[in-house]
């Protein structure tokens, strides 16, 4: 446990020190929120809506987006450690690979949840109604699960990558599709029928719907189903990430 804490502590120190990274990675989700939210608010009518407007519908999706990108990025950061040699320092220490992987995941998930929370707070100022305490807690639970799930996913990817060259590829062909096919920007039901199975195997879909349930009280998928599906995906990702990281060489 203290090893996981040690790695987590390092992630936190680095995160808090890189002010530009905090602000920088808030930029994209925030502008998505502003552009789409305000731009489409008047135009879009959510089918079967229970009173929320498009901006409010969008907020959980954008929070999920912030958590997704930050967590995947934190996981992939292991490649930087590899390139700048720091990974050797941890790998040659008398600790298990699993502890290192879990520590890195914990650190990545925490920074991701903080980024998501910052978007959540910003959203309160632009029209998201203040949810109940319970709703907040539910939203945070789902944000945490997304964070852990995709930080582990990032580590799994990083374990298979030699250097940062593939980063753009991963971002454009893996992470963006995951985001796009998650119901973050539009209701899943409005997608063509053949795409819907894709969204249903996407763990992020359950995260978005879970956060939506917490903040707005409605969701396209029952919250308990979301919790079960996302929880199971998270466990799978940790197992896969730990397995691949164990095999990774420096």
């Amino acid at each position, binding site marked *: 446990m*203290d*090893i996981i*804490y*040690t790695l987590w*502590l*390092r992630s936190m*120190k*680095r995160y808090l*020190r*890189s002010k530009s990274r905090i602000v920088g990675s808030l930029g994209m989700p925030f502008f998505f929120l502003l552009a789409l939210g305000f731009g489409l608010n008047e135009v879009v009518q959510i089918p079967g809506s229970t009173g929320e407007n498009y901006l409010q519908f969008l907020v959980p999706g954008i929070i999920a987006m912030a958590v997704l990108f930050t967590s995947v990025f934190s996981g992939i950061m292991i490649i930087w450690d590899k*390139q*700048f*040699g*720091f*990974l*050797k*320092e*941890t*790998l*040659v*220490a*008398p*600790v298990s690979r699993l502890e290192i992987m879990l520590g890195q995941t914990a650190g990545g998930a925490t920074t991701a949840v903080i980024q998501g929370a910052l978007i959540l707070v910003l959203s309160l100022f632009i029209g998201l109604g203040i949810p109940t305490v319970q709703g907040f807690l539910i939203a945070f639970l789902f944000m945490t699960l997304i964070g852990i799930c995709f930080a582990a996913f990032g580590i799994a990817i990083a374990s298979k990558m030699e*250097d940062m060259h593939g980063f753009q590829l991963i971002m454009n062909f893996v992470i963006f599709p995951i985001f796009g096919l998650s119901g973050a920007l539009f209701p899943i039901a409005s997608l063509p029928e053949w795409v819907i199975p894709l969204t249903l195997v996407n763990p992020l879909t359950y995260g978005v719907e879970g956060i939506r349930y917490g903040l707005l009280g409605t969701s396209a998928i029952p919250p308990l189903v979301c919790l079960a599906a996302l929880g199971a995906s998270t466990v799978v990702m940790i197992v896969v990430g730990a397995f691949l990281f164990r095999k990774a*060489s*420096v």
Partner: protein
Amino acid sequence: MVESKNMAAVLVDGLTKRFGDFTAVDAISFEIKEGEIFGLLGPNGAGKTTAISMLSTLLEPTSGRALLNGIDIQNDQDGVRKAIGIVFQDQSLDEELTAWENMDFHGRLYRIPKVIREARIGEMLRLVELEDRQDSLVKTFSGGMRRRLEIARGLLHEPSVLFLDEPTLGLDPQTRNHLWEYIRNLNRRKGITIILTTHYMDEADRLCNRVAIIDRGRIVAMDTPANLKNRVGEDVVSITSPDADRIAGGITAPWILGAEQYDGQVIIRLQSAEDHLLELLRIIGGEGYTIRSISIRKPTLEDAFLHYTGREMRQEEAGAVDRMRMMMPRRN
């Protein structure tokens, strides 16, 4: 396990590493006594770093066996890891953390209790004279400071064997001298066994009690630096002269092993220069050639390397691993 006072700190037996068809380390064997400074000397790509990686459990050997303080590197990885400290060839510090934080991270990874950890970090930072910079971010450090910090970090958990992989690579001469001083002091004061790899001849010569010359994955010679040099058996006399080419072309004697002319200089290889110098001058003077200056050079480890491998070290091509490393972005 029977612990004996005279147990070898490191015992390597037939250690081999193959990457596909390429044999990086080819059945090397050696034994290092406790408190010794042992050098692995060889050109880039000779297999030094691969050997160190295996001994420090970062790489699985293809075959062979190695014991560190009697602990098998394959059966008890954590046991070995606790017993060794290592300074890698490439920097392995977190630049976004301070010197103290890098040390603290290391101390926590090695599960050193807080009170001891903090006392020892202070002590180690004083040892490498970085205590007044302990709260500065590592990215503000110079190359020499980083190296010293890495050495301090490698010593934090009080290892009995310290690995230094090319410890002075890329440092300026003054810093190198300084570091050598540290390394010698460490060895003397703490009795730590030190294994260092280097491709600097003078480094191996000045620091090591014993040196193994490693070439293309094999140990071709192993002895004290003095013995390695003596076994070369030839000295070098360099003469600067306007008649250099004629001297080189015409000079013969039973004890002269060869003569070459290079840029107005004659390089004569011969047996025991002290005994034959006068005779040599008599031969050259007798022909009426002018001598501007003359110098005698005893063999260096560079000559020893040439002797044992048939090749000059600096002409060595970079090995596969180094070529890869060169392609990667480097920060210094």
